[in-house]
């Protein structure tokens, strides 16, 4: 069957084709842009889930593009890691895109067609990165997705083109570094195919060229991943982008970049080179540790919710990088699981901020008060679940990522492991600060209204103050198409938390490369 034999290439292909089709179809009828995108997004989500089952039952799938045999031809590989990341980005994008229909109409009226077309291109790029087995092909898809990203960010607020421009400069530098690294690898190994390079490398591993190649590729991916101190583009980009862009980029963009880093470090160069011969993995863990603390502290200082979530993402990317850098099984499990968990959490939280902007016109934390709870109870409930998960409270998913990361840190040699445990510890508390601040604001009466009731005064005073303020605020929740994805993501956090052992045993265990 065409579908099943070609399934590796189908998703990027579909998104590419539809990237063209959407403007064409929308030229006829503008309102058809979103349904067309949903069509391809649903297909992509379904195919990615199918791919998971395929890989779990029959093992990794190798697909030769155009029937050219690798290493001369380009090869698409579905192994456990790629299907895992693929299903994460496609399903999360699917949910965010359901939400997108109304809010794109509000934030960018009339521009639905080009916007959705760009989204389709971006998804093509991401899926291509995840599924390709060829180093240069990865660069091509990387640039496809990046260019779309710049466009998606630039359609936002007044300052968004500047943010997009900055991201463009940094992103192009990053991709160029990656390309240079690929160039070095090609010069020394003569091949562009990942598996082939992996086979050839051990014989030339001592050469400085190889070292530089690795460094360049990791550097490039570090910029794309927004690993401290290469994160400078992220806060502005996520803040000024339109709600849907933030909601779709935050869960996917940095995850795909971390996927590339994982792939290059552990599957091309090999664990022993990266972790034992070079101190690269160790360096990454330290940068990650700083990222975690820095992101959490900066998040506390923010007054705008999207900016706060952006810095929070910097910290969460730090978690993933920490897991990668620890280079032991539990660290890797923690990192990969956190790819899933963080994608779901951040998507949910950005959708919440989107809902707030849709109804209230802003998502400024200090302008929130408890009328929001009455107006949008379900949205705030979803926010609470997301917040509890970010802080790391069981049984939500966020707890389990931290659990595995702590176990991974525990297994690492000497005192460094304890430092990382301390970092995770501290960041959880810092997370609690900036999330509970919002929860307090939204769920409690404003403090000014009941100053009389403080410090154990007479009950009479308290009675009088306590009953004046509770005016009736009408329910003004966002509509179903926006609410349901938000809630699905929130509930998903609880479900993913409880079922995490199945996910770990089912897929993630197989991702652990030999030699770890």
């Amino acid at each position: 069957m065409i579908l099943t034999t070609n399934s590796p290439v189908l998703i990027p292909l579909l998104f590419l084709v539809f990237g063209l089709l959407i403007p064409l179809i929308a030229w006829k009828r503008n309102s058809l842009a979103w349904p067309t995108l949903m069509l391809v997004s649903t297909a992509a989500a379904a195919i990615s889930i199918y791919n998971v089952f395929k890989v779990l039952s029959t093992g990794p799938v190798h697909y030769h593009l155009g029937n050219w045999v690798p290493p001369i031809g380009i090869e698409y590989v579905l192994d456990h890691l790629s299907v895992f990341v693929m299903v994460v980005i496609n399903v999360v994008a699917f949910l965010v895109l359901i939400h997108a229909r109304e809010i794109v109409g509000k934030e960018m009226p009339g521009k639905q067609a080009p916007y959705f077309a760009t989204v389709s291109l971006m998804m093509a790029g991401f899926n291509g990165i995840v599924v390709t087995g060829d180093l240069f092909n990865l660069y091509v898809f990387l640039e496809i997705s990046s260019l779309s990203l710049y466009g998606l960010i630039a359609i936002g607020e007044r300052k968004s083109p500047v943010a997009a421009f900055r991201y463009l400069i940094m992103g192009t530098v990053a991709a160029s570094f990656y390309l240079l690294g690929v160039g070095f690898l090609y010069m020394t190994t003569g091949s562009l195919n990942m598996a082939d390079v992996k086979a050839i490398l051990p014989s030339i591993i001592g050469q400085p060229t190889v070292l530089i190649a690795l460094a360049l590729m990791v550097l490039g991916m570090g910029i794309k991943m927004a690993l401290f101190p290469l994160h400078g583009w992220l806060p502005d980009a996520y803040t000024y982008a339109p709600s849907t862009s933030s909601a779709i980029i935050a869960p996917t963009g940095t995850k795909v970049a971390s996927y590339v880093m994982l792939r290059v470090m552990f599957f091309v160069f090999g664990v022993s080179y990266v972790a034992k011969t070079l101190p690269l993995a160790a360096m990454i863990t330290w940068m990650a540790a700083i990222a975690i603390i820095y992101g959490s502290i900066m998040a506390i200082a923010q007054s705008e919710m999207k900016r706060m979530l952006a810095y929070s993402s910097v910290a969460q990317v730090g978690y993933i990088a920490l897991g990668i850098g620890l280079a032991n099984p539990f660290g890797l499990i923690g990192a990969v699981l956190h790819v899933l968990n963080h994608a779901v959490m951040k998507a949910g939280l950005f959708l919440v901020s989107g809902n707030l902007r849709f109804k209230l016109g802003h998502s400024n934390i200090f302008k929130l008060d408890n009328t929001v709870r009455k107006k949008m109870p379900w949205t705030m409930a979803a926010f609470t679940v997301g917040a509890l998960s970010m802080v790391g409270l069981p049984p939500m998913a966020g707890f389990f990522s931290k659990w595995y990361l702590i176990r991974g840190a525990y297994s690492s040699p000497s005192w460094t492991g304890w430092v990382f445990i301390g970092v995770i510890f501290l960041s959880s508390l810092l997370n609690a600060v900036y999330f509970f601040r919002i929860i307090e604001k939204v769920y409690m009466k404003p403090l000014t209204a009941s100053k009389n009731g403080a410090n154990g005064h007479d009950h009479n005073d308290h009675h009088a103050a306590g009953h004046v303020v509770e005016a009736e605020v009408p329910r003004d929740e966002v509509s179903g198409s926006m609410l349901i994805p938000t809630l699905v993501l929130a509930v998903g956090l609880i479900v993913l938390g409880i079922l995490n052992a199945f996910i770990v045993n089912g897929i993630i265990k197989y991702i652990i490369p030999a030699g770890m």
Partner: protein
Amino acid sequence: MTTLEFILGHYAYWLTLVLMMIGLYGMMMKRNLVKKLIGMTIFQVSIIIFYVAGAVKWGATEPILDNVDIEKVHHGMTQAISTAKYINPLPHTLMLTAIVVGVATTGVAFALVIMIYKRYKTLDEAVLLERMKKDNDSDN
């Protein structure tokens, strides 16, 4: 090998390095947005030159099979084309793609620059940041 040989022998790579540094300098130190873009383009070009330089072989010609060789293979006189006669075409094809990517990036970049100019009426980074800050203040 002697230092002179080292420098002159690897002149292509030195060129790459110099161009990269010029590009980075342009991106970081220039205040005009368009000049930053120029720097970025130079940076990308340096990498293209690197690849192309890596494709070169001594005494080789362009990778187009000449009729003599094709005849030889057809008549079974040689088993395969001697690759040492032709430079490596693969980096060239890769770089075609990279050039296209570069062009697209430049296109998007200039679209952004136009947008920025329309909104802020300046292409100077320092002035731009100031005007953005004023935006901030008027927002709050």
